[in-house]
């Protein structure tokens, strides 16, 4: 198992939280995780990008670098349409782009319908899970989300399902 995922969005969109959920899922599955995140000044409304590498399980090589090179990512989760343009070059040929825009999935619209625009990140995560582009099953993500959400668990899971349903419906 080896997967390289780029998560891109704006400061305040919960990109870091989404990254942590996927990383926790990998840990639950006994895989190794190496990731790199944006902190500091850029978190104030700037473009935020996380690199996440998951590996292990079988004999394939380990990752040692916390960063993904352009043209190497298997998946790009763009929490804002800008992310798809700005970080699109990280995707490898045949890589999967999941983008929050009105054409693919209007995660922001769905989150607002649920009453909280800050749920956009979780809606998109649910959608990505349903598209089966990540290394893990949707149920493993649900479990990690539940564990990491504290008092917000119910609201977050509802957002996850709302995104998930966009594919099945």
């Amino acid at each position, binding site marked *: 198992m080896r997967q390289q995922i780029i998560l891109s969005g704006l400061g305040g969109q919960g990109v870091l939280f989404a990254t942590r959920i996927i990383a926790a899922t990998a840990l639950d599955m006994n895989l190794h995780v190496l990731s790199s995140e944006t902190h500091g000044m850029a978190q104030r409304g700037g473009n935020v990008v996380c690199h996440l590498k998951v590996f292990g399980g079988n004999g394939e090589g380990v990752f*040692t670098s916390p960063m993904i090179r352009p043209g190497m990512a298997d998946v790009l989760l763009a929490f804002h349409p800008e992310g798809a343009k700005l970080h699109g070059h990280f995707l490898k040929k045949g890589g999967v782009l999941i983008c929050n825009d009105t054409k693919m999935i209007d995660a922001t619209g769905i989150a607002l319908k649920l009453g909280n625009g800050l749920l956009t990140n979780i809606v998109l995560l649910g959608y990505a899970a349903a598209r089966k582009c990540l290394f893990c099953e949707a149920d493993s993500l649900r479990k990690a989300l539940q564990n990491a959400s504290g008092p917000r668990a119910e609201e977050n899971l509802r957002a996850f399902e709302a995104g998930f349903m966009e594919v099945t419906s």
Partner: protein
Amino acid sequence: MAERKILLGNEAIAYGLIEEGCRIAASYPGTPASEIMGTLVRLKDSESIEWLHVEWSINEKVAFETALAGAYSGLRSAVMMKQVGLNVASDPLMSAAYTGVKGGFTIISADDPGPHSSQTEQDSRFYAMLAKIPVLDPSSPEEAKNMVSTAFATSEKYEIPVMIRPTTRVCHARQDVIVKGYQHVETKSPTFEKNPSRWAATPKFRFLLHKQLNEKLREIASANEISIPGNGSTTCILASGVAWANAKEVMDELNLHDRVHLIKVNMPYPLPDSFLKTVLNAHQKVLVLEETYPVIEYQFRDRQKVSGRLDGTVPSQGELLPEKIEDIIRSWLGIEQAKRPVPEDLPTRRPTLCPGCGHRPVFYAIRKVFPKGIYPGDIGCYTLGINIGAVDTVLCMGASIAQAAGFFHSFNGNDKMPPIVATIGDSTFFHAGIPPLINGVVQGARFVLVILDNRTTAMTGHQPIPPISIENMVRACGVEFVRVADPYDLKSLEEILKEAGKYAFEDKKGIAVVIARKPCRMDRRAQHRFPEIEVFITDECNGCGYCVERFECPAISLPKKKEPAVIDPVLCVRCGVCVDVCPFEAIGVKK
């Protein structure tokens, strides 16, 4: 019980400090180092680690000296900061290398190649060299955690401070790491052996201490074992830190290990002469990959065979991203360059103050009240006052005040004396703003100083500030004009600024200080209730763009020029301040 946890590099370092029995830890926040102390504070509390003293000190120099006294007393102690914080602590650093320590003492100084969140790309390892102390260069969170143990052991064995130098990509990397947990460390009692010729050495004894330091350094260098792979290849790459991690992955992928030796350097300084000689004797070609300055490279006395930063093989500035490392390795070995997608040349979003941030109205008002001013600024979220055109200089922590005075003395007597209006945050004021304020008063400078008091150190993740009255502090510095303003009350804020301007510039009385107080909206610990004022764009809006340009709330945008502005309902926090900004009264309040 050992368990596997996903930890941020900084968290891993904190776990390492606790597992290794650190007793005194002190820090001042700064990206990328802040989460080390943040984690220590959290763990001390949640795990009741009562034998550990933790503190957010007032600045890095104070943090350094406090922790050092712990090490003088035989206790394992640590100080952590970002690289420019080490500049502030460089005075005790140089001297502490001479005095040495009793208990293990580690200085964790986090560098920021790029830079991502700093004024400089400086390399703390050069500080280690300058001070003549050993430095460790971790390549991952796990390694950073393990190096805490090496640092303490080396420090105790040779009675010398030891630096650990992680970079942003270690501090803010996450990795699954084994956490051992800790037993209650055998509570070693502090002892302080009086020894004035060491702890209070006069210049004559300093010479002897210097001699001892040189001896320690020689021994440490010869114990610095670095393994050289033995497959007989005549080409080698010497790398440390994240540059090694990137090079390793690239070389794995290109199957280069048969052709090229990859040598990992954990302690880039001091390097043993014998090692440097062996590397040169065994290889025709040597490439050094390290961040950010050529510390390993400079230690080669003969650099004929050595490529790196000094001969231009590696660029002299900027982060060594894995793709850059791949390009360097390929071209150095004469392999065809990789074809990879190039990023579209798009403007990235500039960071801005949060919606509802109490700093925004202050910058707006400064520009409005003092349109032709010079605006010395400082380090924090409020550096972003640049976007509003109300920050002209950003040098280093606390510089706004001394520079305001300096601008005053430069322009004083000139008939076109501009109004000088400086801004500084609460935490930065305590960190380095007090001596320059006293100095400004003593030297008779006249300017307006606005202290942006949001009751926290916001930029770095909301560390606490001293619970000391800023008003009293300012008065004690000799300032007579001190007013407190509420930034959300824009009209009265403007009035207070005008009064301050009159005091400083027209009446020529001295320095006027305005404390603009509003808790940070992102500080979850702040017990503050903010108003909820729902605003909307009325039909009066003609799309002039004044609010977007001069106030720059991220929630307000102008989709097209000359068309009405739009308020983003997700971003808007209903602070209501923009209502007083629009010159056409086109932002209304929903009843």
